[in-house]
């Protein structure tokens, strides 16, 4: 597909005797947000981890015209991919400032981070483990936004957050996605409807559907079949 930044072809992941992914193929556009949807255990996070080289995979992953399948994660990230993992994974015994410093690459943009999350500027010396879930998510997002990335890979950024924090995080992601393409895993369909343009649905490790998010969320029968829920009309 022309204009795609990331092309995934026949991505398969095996863990022992278990086949986790069965040859998934999809594209991530060079602008806006592409969301991966699916029921619990469908293979969404596995797909992200395989793309990032955290899991051994077969198939092809092409990023910005270069084959990157099974490339060491740190090398792939340094090509311009910011990663926000599921469950934040901040370093609890490091301060907020140290968490951010660890993510610094060539020219860290603290102004961008503190404009989006002004609270973090005041909490530099606070240990990340003592922050609330929402604040930890901001640290996790800030680590990815600190550098000039070409793609952001974000796994369930609103999971376990209060509605007010979900609104803040969604607004921040919407602002970010205007300048950097995002590959998102998200279960909250309201958030998906606000952020995502393209959608990829996986089911039991297989590609179940791919297309326009709006088309998916407008089709109650389709969302019920693919996701087990009826989406509210966006």
């Amino acid at each position, binding site marked *: 597909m022309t204009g795609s930044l990331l092309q995934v072809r026949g991505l398969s992941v095996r863990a022992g005797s278990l086949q986790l992914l069965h040859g998934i193929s999809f594209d991530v556009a060079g602008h806006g947000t592409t969301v991966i949807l699916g029921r619990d255990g469908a293979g969404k996070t596995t797909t992200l981890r395989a793309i990032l080289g*955290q899991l051994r995979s077969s198939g092809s992953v092409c990023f910005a015209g270069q084959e990157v399948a099974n490339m060491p*994660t740190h090398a792939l*990230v340094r090509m311009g991919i910011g*990663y926000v993992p599921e469950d934040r994974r901040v370093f609890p015994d490091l301060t907020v400032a*140290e968490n951010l*410093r660890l993510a610094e690459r060539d020219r860290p943009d603290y102004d961008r981070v503190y404009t989006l999350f002004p609270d973090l500027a005041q909490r530099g010396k606070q240990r990340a483990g003592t922050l609330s879930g929402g604040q930890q998510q901001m640290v996790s997002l800030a*680590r990815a936004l600190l550098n000039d990335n070409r793609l952001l890979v974000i796994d369930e950024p609103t999971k376990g957050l209060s509605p007010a924090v979900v609104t803040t995080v969604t607004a921040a992601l919407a602002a970010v996605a205007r300048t950097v393409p995002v590959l998102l895993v998200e279960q909250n369909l309201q958030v998906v409807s606000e952020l995502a343009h393209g959608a990829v649905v996986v089911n039991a490790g297989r590609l179940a559907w791919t297309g326009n998010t709006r088309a998916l969320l407008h089709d109650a029968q389709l969302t019920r079949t693919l996701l087990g829920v009826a989406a509210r009309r966006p």
Partner: protein
Amino acid sequence: MTTIVLLAVTGLGLAALYFLAASGLTLVFGLADVLNLAHGLLVSVGAYTAWVTATSLGGSHPSTRDIAIAVVAGTAAGALAATVVEVTMIRPLYQRTFEQILITVGLSLAGVALLQIVWGTQPLTFPKPAWTATVSTIAGMAVPNHSLILIAAAATVLIGLTLFLRHTRIGLIVRAGVQDREMVIALGVNVRTAFTVVFAIGGAAAALGGALGGIYFGAIDPSQGAALLIFAIGVVIIGGKGSITGTAVAATVVGLLQQFVNYYAAAGAGDLCVIALLAAVVLVRPQGLAGGKTA
């Protein structure tokens, strides 16, 4: 009272030796998940390099300058040996725990055999300046100089490592890596560089312990490093893997416990108490005293 102070100082001297041997081990174990069973060999590398250097420079009565050069040479040799071991043997085997154990045990055995071939199986008298075998008077108490040297060296290494961990980028990577190595890599950090640096630092500290251990015990032998490794592993587990502060506290507890129990109960009972303490920590607080905090 004098006996208690003397036991405390010699116990702290022993604790300092344990800390030097264990400090690198704990960082390597915490960051890279590598239990380097050849770490004791690095203690011997330091001891024998210092012995060769001191003997070459000053015969059986080296000057303070000679022994200082010998200790520096031993420490440098330990750092170099650790780096070579990491790059050539450990690096190809990261995340292959069983193979790591096999190769580090094999290296340890081969190293001891090599030392025996070159210098024999009998202990070698460690040449040292006369003042290291005398005592200093501190607050009216006579304390052995060889213990003070070890305590001062261990305190310097503790402060140096703490500053390194808190104020350098590699130190930051180590502290984060002990908590969540995969996430450090996912931030674009090549942790392999940190692994090598930590190995080199650990090798230097262990070798420093070996060199100063020669002064402390007055003799070195090929199996000294391997014997020390057993207590060093105990200190790492009690202190909490990856924790320098925990290692310092655990080494102090182990050194003092061993010394006092050996004196007041029976020779050898101290070693038994250390094993009992180790078992208690593993059962009650398996994460160790520090519980995952690096510095």
